[in-house]
């Protein structure tokens, strides 16, 4: 099984360094594979260089995929963090 979720960047500054580091930290707690897809670029969500390379600006849409034993918990916590605008709203 695999969980897919589409999220939107809602904060003004976009996906900058601080939220990128937080996402990687959140994802690393879980065992499941976590990937982010944007404009044909597929990156590993547990890698800081990968998440920063997305350069996701405000308004852009990302597809999150979770695959593994704890995919449900991971997908909920991480997509919630996106929807909260990285606590910058």
């Amino acid at each position, binding site marked *: 099984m695999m969980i897919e979720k589409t999220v939107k960047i809602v904060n003004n500054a976009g996906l900058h360094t601080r939220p990128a580091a937080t996402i990687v930290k959140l994802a690393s707690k879980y065992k499941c594979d976590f990937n982010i897809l944007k404009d044909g*670029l597929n*990156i590993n969500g547990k*890698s800081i*260089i990968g998440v920063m390379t997305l350069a996701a600006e405000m308004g852009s849409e990302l597809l999150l995929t979770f695959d593994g034993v704890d995919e449900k918990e991971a997908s909920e916590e991480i997509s919630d963090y996106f929807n909260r605008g990285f606590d910058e709203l």
Partner: protein
Amino acid sequence: MIKIDQKAVSRKESITVEFLFKNSKDKFKLRLLSDESGFSKNIYEQNLHRPGLALTGFVDLFSFSRVQIFGNTEMSFLRQLPDDQKEETLRRIFKFNIPCIILTDNNVPFPKLIDLANEFRIPLFSSPFSTTKLVFLVSDFLDDQFAPRVSIHGSFVDVYGAGVLFVGKSGIGKSEVTLDLVERGHRLVADDIIILTKKGEGILIGSGTNLAKHFMEIRGLGIIDVERMFGIRAIRFQKRLEIIVELEVWDEKEEYTRTGLDEKFISILDVDIPYVKLPILPGKNITVISEVISLNYLLKHYGHDASKIFEQRLNDRLKEKKVDDLRGVDYFEHDFE
């Protein structure tokens, strides 16, 4: 075995004439003869077209959406027409939505050609290259632009001249092996996100992304700049992908090759790439093993396949059916060194 996510495969739908001009004007020695009003037009195809027949009036099946090449044939045909027919002929094909026109062999356009190109907003270029040469150059450029590409998570290093891509789970130590290899004089192509582009048939060329370049992350340390730290000798911008090495924690249930006779391949964008699965064990030096994988690949490439040669030696011995002394040297003489 790694999975290639089909969603990570992409291909450019179109490029603008402006993009073609900006990125290739030095290479193709292109000169703009018209104004820039048609620069936003899109090119959708890598094929080119020489509109010889269309100029004579046969416009059925005219491949107008391709970049049009006017060589010596087209230009001398146009030049020998009387002025009113020149205009009529050009108007007939300019009605179609042509992205742009390139004159080869330094052909000089007559004034009417430039006027009409401007009127129909068709960018007009000229190049000193011969038609054959220019067609080759432009096709290769467009082929690369429209080539399928895929992004993949891993570390890509040039090890003794062979392009080795390390893949595996996050945190398994791909970046650490890469750093170790760079320290030993090998060259980093990219870490973390590798963009593989299909070049021609059967070749994949890997490079990093625009943004990440030769930056990499080392766990517990953060982001480092490999180019600054180790200098220009430690990096390269692109490399053909030749071997994929998957690092994984030793799994008792998994079967690992012992002879190397059973070669495995991974298919990426329909290109088969040799694949090695490398279990990680305490005390195992992955860096040195990676160098050996690369050297073994090079030996095979030059016709020396160690596993096959050993198998051959065994088969020869079995055929001889004679019992030999097991020792590899018949007589040690008086050599006590």
